[in-house]
């Protein structure tokens, strides 16, 4: 750990870290990407050269200090280099969500006044061209994949490799300028600007300085003992702060290798081939994987199924204890070892988790069964709690203190305070500088002493010092009779069922709770296949009587479990319907990080909400949907509304006594 004792002196920007890595880890791999069926790799020395060539090319194109450069595309080494090259020339990289539609991009590009954009392919080029006439500051676009772009007007359009070639050719002309600009960067210069997806309102540009990123990367790398020979798979959106911290912040601080998948469809195969040692995924990914395993086990032969069930039962019993280093009897240990050979090892291998030393999940609550499943296999899966505004880390779980219902202890350097209304506040070196061009919001979120409001309600467990999050502070409301209403709490319980992909619970200011349910097409579709139930569309399956019966059973189980919680027993779901379409970010119903936008859904499906509360047994509705290419269409449906059994809270308590 020579570089750590060296301190952060002189290493006050990402380009400075790159220079250190190029000299210190010059020959070890910095990036890998699978292309043409083979893992192509670049060492740190190669990376420094590529970044330099691009930075010179950018100077050649006329990038000024303080310019914003939009970066749009899936995770590729070239786009990571683009971010660092932008920093080298004193510009600010702004990664955008690649699946955003043109209008969303227009807002962000206009808000930051980007003069340049570096994009992946024709699809992104087309989107930017569609809106560029309305952006008066926009000048040049650089693309990676030339396919289909040959006939485009190339006066303001450049191929990535050509920009690099021109940069190399103009080396003598610009190298002094480049070095001058890079050496000017310090802890206070802006490292990156990331737009929050925003569950309400327009996205806000979060400005993060080099101090924020590097201090956070340093503290979190030390917390989990990350090493230069660790491997990560970069597959989460580049516009998301987590990817920036893992694939740039921590990667440049510790010098580990970032691997990029061949295409989004091959992600799972690539994961297996790379077998990362440090892995991050939102709960959704773990859920999907578990669902797939279970589906495949259902389809397997009797012997395999029995073996799997037998050893998984044992793993659930002793696996987490072994992982946490608690005492476990020798016989159980032996049996677990046998299970490792028979089931756990091959399963981890198939999932690509053989080498995972540290795994994190965050962004949403994870179901306890799902969490325990992975931990029982011996995968050190932990939870963290974070925000863009905090450069990710607020709290995280130390090794050996992992539970599914807490989000851990404050990360190194982070202070936590709980306000009187239950809202969680934090202060840390990672706290963002400001919201770009939005002093009002900045002041609302961050006070003069540097405390930031998370917007989440929670409390610290006295015995352990772990933070527990209840819900979004502004979502926690009251029902008509004054009882506490925490929709997210109920929705999470519902979403833990594999058949339920998404749930939206209504009830603030009402006399009872009702819910919208989205079925999970993979799980329910497989069930339909195995039971010979024919269906032609998502809509038809979602309206099937047996599907409704299953969902009803799930809701009733959840009601029974909620009834045991004195504070929240009023949140039981009285009536529900299964939505005829999947909630989608393209329709504005979810954020790009797939969080439900409660208010928008409530307004958009007002007719359905009313039907839930007026006692009708079915409702006819028409919904506008946006297709992937931006066209709009309508779907019509008649939905059945059902009553679910609720458990009177008082009875429950009596029964328990």
């Amino acid at each position, binding site marked *: 750990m020579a570089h750590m004792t060296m301190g952060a002196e002189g290493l006050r920007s990402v380009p400075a870290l790159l220079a250190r890595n190029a000299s210190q880890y010059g020959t070890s791999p910095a990036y890998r990407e699978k292309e*043409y069926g083979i893992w192509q790799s670049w060492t740190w020395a190669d990376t420094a050269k590529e970044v330099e060539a691009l930075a010179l090319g950018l100077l050649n194109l006329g990038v000024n200090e303080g310019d914003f450069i939009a970066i749009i595309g899936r995770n590729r080494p070239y786009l990571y280099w683009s971010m660092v090259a932008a920093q080298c020339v004193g510009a600010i990289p702004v990664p955008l969500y690649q699946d955003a539609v043109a209008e969303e991009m227009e807002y962000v590009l206009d808000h930051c006044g980007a003069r340049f954009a570096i994009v992946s392919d024709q699809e992104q080029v087309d989107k930017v061209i569609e809106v560029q006439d309305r952006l008066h500051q926009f000048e040049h676009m650089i693309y990676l994949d030339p396919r289909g772009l040959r*006939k485009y007007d190339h006066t303001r359009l450049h191929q990535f490799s050509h920009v690099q070639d021109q940069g190399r050719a103009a080396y003598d002309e610009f190298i002094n300028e480049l070095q001058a600009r890079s050496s000017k960067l310090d802890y206070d210069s802006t490292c990156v600007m990331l737009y929050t997806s925003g569950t309400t309102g327009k996205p806000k540009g979060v400005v993060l300085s080099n101090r924020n990123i590097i201090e956070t990367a340093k503290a979190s790398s030390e917390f989990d003992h990350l090493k230069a020979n660790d491997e990560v798979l970069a597959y989460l959106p580049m516009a998301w702060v987590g990817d920036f911290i893992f694939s740039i912040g921590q990667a440049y601080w510790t010098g580990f290798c970032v691997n990029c998948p061949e295409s989004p469809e091959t992600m799972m195969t690539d994961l297996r081939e790379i077998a990362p040692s440090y892995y991050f995924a939102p709960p959704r990914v773990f859920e999907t994987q578990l669902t797939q395993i279970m589906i495949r086990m259902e389809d397997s032969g009797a012997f395999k199924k029995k073996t799997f069930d037998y050893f998984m039962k044992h793993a659930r019993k002793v696996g987490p204890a072994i992982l946490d280093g608690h005492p476990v009897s020798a016989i159980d240990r032996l049996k677990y070892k046998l299970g490792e050979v028979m089931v756990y090892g091959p399963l981890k291998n198939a999932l690509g988790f053989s080498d995972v030393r540290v795994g994190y999940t965050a962004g949403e609550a994870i179901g306890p069964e799902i969490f325990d499943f992975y931990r029982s296999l011996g995968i050190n899966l932990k939870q963290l709690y974070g925000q863009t505004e905090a450069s990710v880390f607020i709290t995280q779980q130390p090794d050996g203190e992992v539970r599914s219902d807490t989000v851990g202890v404050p990360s190194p350097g982070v202070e936590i305070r709980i306000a009187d209304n239950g809202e969680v506040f934090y202060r840390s070196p990672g706290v963002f500088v400001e919201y770009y061009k939005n002093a009002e919001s900045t002041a609302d979120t961050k006070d003069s002493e540097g405390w930031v409001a998370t917007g989440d309600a929670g409390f610290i467990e006295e015995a352990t010092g772990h933070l527990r999050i209840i819900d979004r502070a502004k979502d926690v409301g009251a029902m008509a009779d004054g009882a506490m209403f925490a929709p997210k709490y109920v929705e999470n319980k519902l979403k833990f069922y594999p058949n339920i992909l998404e749930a939206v619970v209504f009830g603030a200011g009402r006399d009872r709770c009702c819910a919208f349910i989205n079925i999970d097409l993979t799980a329910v579709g497989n069930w339909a296949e195995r039971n010979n139930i024919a269906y032609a569309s998502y809509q038809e399956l979602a309206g099937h009587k047996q599907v409704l019966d299953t969902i009803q059973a799930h809701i009733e189980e959840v009601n029974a479990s909620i009834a045991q919680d004195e504070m929240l027993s009023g949140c039981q779901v009285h009536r529900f319907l299964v939505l005829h379409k999947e909630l989608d970010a393209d329709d504005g119903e979810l954020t790009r990080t797939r969080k439900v936008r409660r208010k928008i859904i409530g307004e958009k499906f007002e007719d359905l909400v009313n039907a839930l509360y007026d006692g009708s047994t079915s409702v006819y509705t028409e919904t506008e949907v946006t297709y992937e290419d931006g066209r709009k269409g309508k779907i019509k449906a008649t939905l059945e509304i059902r009553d679910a059994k609720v458990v009177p809270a008082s009875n429950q308590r009596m029964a328990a006594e």
Partner: protein
Amino acid sequence: MKDTEGYVTADGRQIGGTLMEMRNITLRFGGVVAIQDISFDIREGEVRAIIGPNGAGKSSMLNVISGFYTPSEGEVWYKGAKRPPMKPFEVARQGVARTFQNIALFEGMTVLDNVMTGRLTHMNAGLASQALWWGKARDEEMENREKVERVIDFLEIQNIRKTPVGRLPYGLKKRVELARALAAEPSILLLDEPMAGMNVEEKEDMSRFILDVNDEFGTTICLIEHDMGVVMDLSDRVVVMDYGKKIGDGTPDEVRNNQDVIDAYLGVPH
């Protein structure tokens, strides 16, 4: 006949001189005349379509081009020389690759292996070298695999690289067939109804791939298609056939306004 100057298309592409020419082709099966005295040319870099109602003789024409049928009368000129009667594999060696109307892939083999078969015409290592996996055979395999991987990347089928073709849906099989034909690095690519049986989305994808192939590799494309919308959007020039005769030839617009073509498609009493 000796026009080799080429022309510029509506979207600004430069089309080269004549690459292949059919001169007074007639094809008979016993007493049935499948093709009757047809002449047309295919120029370098263009997308040439052959259209016509069912039974017009389109596929027979394609089979003549690919060497599967030898014409009863007439000559095929390719790259400035008259082509002697030859076997289809010899034609393929000359740079003519094709896809089939009814998918003709090896169902039990993976996508990768299927596409590799497209490179067979470029492999000439000896039996011993192949068997020992040494020397020329190995070098060749690596070189060919790289070419194949570029095609796989181009057609975006990386995720099914190792999947047996038999397990793929129809639309993807069509794409794999295109990949195999492309792997041969043909001068002329013959597509026999590339969109048949596809849904709108698959047709859009396939159209994009065909245009991209033409644009990226400069491959000359000759296609047969039923979907008029697709033909009119994709092709630079169109040959129209009906009952074995050529009834029209020209740009999509010219063909669209040709009375004989309208009659053939809408039907008039013969």
